[in-house]
C-alpha cells in the first residue's frame, strides 16, 4: 500500500509587485513605457466598465458582464501580445480585445444587439465567445494553422475558472499539447463562475497544475499584479512564437462586480469577502508602484480617466449612429455563396415582412 501519490502542492503565485506597490527584491520589471501603457489600458478598462454598466441601466445596451477587478490580468496580457498574435477570448476579456485592436464601438455595437464586426483589417481575433470554453479547441486550430505555415506568432486562448470544467477546455488544451502548438492558455481565475465558487468547480489545488497532465508547463500568477501578468505572458508568448509549444497561465484575480448586469451576487457571496478584495484592487496597486518608481506625474490617473471618458463618449456615439441590423444583412452574412434554395427562403421571409409593413 502507499502506491498512490498526490500532486505537488507547493504553488506560490508569481508576484513582482506587492500590494503596497513595492517591487519584490530582485524582480525584473518591464520598461517604463510598457508599465505606463498597461496603466493607461487598466484605467480605460475601468472607465469602459462603468460606462457600459450605466448604458445598460439606461436601456441603451443589453446585459453585459462586469470586468471590474480583472483589469490587470486583461491589460497585462493584452499589452504582452503582438499584432500578429491571435486572440480567442470570451465576454470577460473585452479589455484584452480592445488592447489587441478591436475598437470600443465594435463591442458597444455587439452589446447594442448589432452586428459585432467586422473587426478592423488585420486584427486577428475570433468573435467574443459566449458559449463557455468553445474557444479552446478553436484556438488550437488557429495554432495549428500558424505552425503549419511556420508563422512566428502565437495564439492566446482566454477563459475563466468555470470554463476549465468544460469538455472543450480539456479537448482544446489536450489537442494543443498533443500537436505541440503555439498556444498560450490564460485562465482568469476570478473565484466565481456566476454563483459557484472555485472550490466547487474542481478539486485541483490549482488550475495551473492541470497543464502538466497535458504535457505543457504552467505558471500561477497573482492576477492583480499587472506587471507579473505581463512578464509571465511575455515569456509564454515568446516560447510559443519560437516554436517551443503551448503553456498555461492561471491568473488568480477576483470579480469585484456581478457576473452580469442580470446577476445579484448578494444571493451567494458575502459582502465582507468583496470588501476585503476591494482592498486588493489592481488599479490603485499599480498606481502605488508608479508612485514608488517615480513614474507617476501629478494628476496622471485623472488625465487618463478624462481621456478614456472622452474616447468612450465618441465610441458610444459611433455605435449609436450605426444603422440597425436589417433582415437583408442577416441573410447576406449567413451565406457567402447563396444557393437558389437559400435565395428562395430570403425572398419568402422578406415578402412576408413587406406584406404586413414590417419592412
Amino acid at each position, binding site marked *: 500500500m502507499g502506491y498512490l501519490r498526490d500532486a505537488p502542492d507547493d504553488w506560490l503565485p508569481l508576484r513582482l509587485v506587492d500590494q503596497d506597490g513595492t517591487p519584490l527584491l530582485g524582480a525584473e520589471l518591464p520598461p517604463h513605457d510598457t508599465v505606463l501603457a498597461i496603466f493607461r489600458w487598466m484605467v480605460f478598462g475601468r472607465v469602459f466598465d462603468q460606462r457600459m454598466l450605466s448604458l445598460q441601466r439606461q436601456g441603451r445596451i443589453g446585459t453585459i458582464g462586469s470586468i471590474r477587478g480583472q483589469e490587470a490580468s486583461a491589460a497585462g496580457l493584452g499589452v504582452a501580445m503582438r499584432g500578429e498574435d*491571435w486572440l*480567442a477570448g470570451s465576454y470577460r476579456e473585452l479589455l484584452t480585445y480592445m488592447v489587441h485592436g478591436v475598437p470600443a464601438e465594435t463591442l458597444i455595437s455587439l452589446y447594442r444587439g448589432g*452586428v*459585432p*464586426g*467586422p*473587426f478592423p483589417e488585420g486584427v486577428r481575433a*475570433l*468573435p467574443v465567445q459566449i*458559449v463557455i470554453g*468553445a474557444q*479552446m*479547441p*478553436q*484556438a*488550437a*486550430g*488557429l*495554432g*495549428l*494553422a*500558424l505552425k*503549419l505555415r511556420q508563422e512566428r506568432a502565437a*495564439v492566446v486562448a482566454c477563459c475563466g475558472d468555470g470554463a476549465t470544467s468544460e*469538455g*472543450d477546455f*480539456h*479537448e*482544446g488544451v*489536450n*489537442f494543443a499539447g*498533443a*500537436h505541440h502548438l503555439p498556444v498560450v492558455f490564460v485562465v482568469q481565475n476570478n473565484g466565481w463562475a456566476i454563483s459557484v465558487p472555485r472550490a466547487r468547480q474542481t478539486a485541483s489545488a490549482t488550475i495551473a497544475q492541470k497543464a502538466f497532465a497535458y504535457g505543457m508547463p504552467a505558471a500561477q500568477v497573482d492576477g492583480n499584479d499587472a506587471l507579473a501578468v505581463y512578464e509571465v505572458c511575455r515569456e509564454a508568448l515568446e516560447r510559443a512564437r519560437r516554436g517551443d509549444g503551448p503553456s498555461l497561465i492561471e491568473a488568480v484575480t477576483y470579480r469585484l462586480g456581478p457576473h452580469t448586469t442580470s446577476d445579484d451576487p448578494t444571493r451567494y457571496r458575502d459582502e465582507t469577502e468583496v470588501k476585503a478584495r476591494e482592498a486588493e484592487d489592481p488599479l490603485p496597486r499599480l498606481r502605488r508602484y508608479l508612485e514608488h518608481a517615480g513614474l507617476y506625474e501629478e494628476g496622471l490617473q485623472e488625465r487618463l480617466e478624462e481621456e478614456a471618458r472622452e474616447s468612450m463618449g465618441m465610441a458610444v456615439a459611433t455605435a449609436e449612429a450605426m444603422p440597425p441590423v436589417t433582415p437583408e444583412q*442577416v441573410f*447576406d*452574412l*449567413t*451565406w*457567402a*455563396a447563396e*444557393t*437558389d*434554395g*437559400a435565395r*428562395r*427562403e430570403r425572398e419568402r421571409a422578406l415578402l412576408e415582412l413587406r406584406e404586413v409593413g414590417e419592412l
Partner: protein
Amino acid sequence: MKANVVEAVQDAMRIALREDPACLVLGEDVGRNGGVFRATDGLQQEFGEGRVLDTPLAESSIAGVGLGLAAAGMHPICEIQFAGFLYITMNQIGSQVARLRLRTGGSLKAQMVIRAPYGGNVRTPDLHSDSFEAIYAHTPGIKVVLPATAYAAKGLLLAAIEDPDPVLFLEPMRIYRGFREEIPDGHYTVPLGQARVAREGGDVTLVAYGAAVGTALEAADVLATEGIQAEIVDLQTVAPLDAETVLASVRKTGRVVVIHEAARPGGLGAEVAAVIQEGAFYSLEAPIERVTGWATPYPFVQAEGLYVPSAARIAAAARRTLSA
C-alpha cells in the same frame, strides 16, 4: 477511372490536397491507418503529416480545430468517424461554425468540410448508424450534402471543399463499396444546392437522397413492371433545399413519396412535404407519403433491416398515392 463511393471520396481529397496548398485533412485514424473506411488511404504517405493529421479522439475538438484553421485561412476537411458521433460536435458546428461569418460581420469565414459516414443497414452497432441530416438542415449557416453515387461523391466533395461556406458532407456508409462506376479522372465539380432527376417518369415522384436513392431506383424498377413510371428526384443537397426541382417534378406527376432512413418526426420528409404544399398544392392528386425510419432511436442490428426503408415499402407507398 472506375470507382466506388469511398474511392471517389478519396480521389476528391487527393485532388484537393494536390491543387490547394491551404487544404488539409484531419480526424481520428485518418493518417497512418488511412481512416477506418480507408477513405484517406495513402494520403498521409503522399502529402505528409502536416497535411493529413491524426487528431486525439475528441470529436468536438475536431470541429473546433477546423473552425480555427478556417478562421486562419486554411481549408480543412474534418472527418468524424461515424455520423452517430455528430451529437458531440453539435455546439462547435451549430453555434460556432455555422455562425462564424454572421457573428464576425463577414470578417471570418468557415471554408471547411466536415465529412462523416452516415446511415445503417451495415450490421454495425446501433450508435454508429444514425442519419442526422435533419438536425443540421435545421441549423442554417452550414450546407448539408449527401451524395448517392460515386460520380456525385467526387464532384460534390470537390465543390464542398471549394465552397466558401461550411459543408457537412454525409457519406452513405451502406453504398461505400456497393458498386463501381466510371467517373472522370481529374478535377470536376457537381454544384451544391442543386437536386437532380435520377430517373424520369410521369406517374409519381420519389424524393430521396444518399443511399435511399438506390433503394428508390429498385422500387421504380418494380413499379415499372406494373406500368407505373416513377420519377426520382435526388436532392443531393438537403440544406439549403432545391425546392424548384422538386416542385417541377410534382407539377408533372401530382403524386409524391419522400424517402429517408432518418427518424420520421421532424425529418427532411416533413420539410419537403411542407415545401410541396406551399409551392404545388394544386398539382397534388393525393396525400404526400413518407417512407422513413421510425419514431424510435435507431434499433439494433436484428431489426435494422425493417427500420431502413426497403424498395417494397417505397413501391407500396407509391401505389397508395396512385389509388388515392
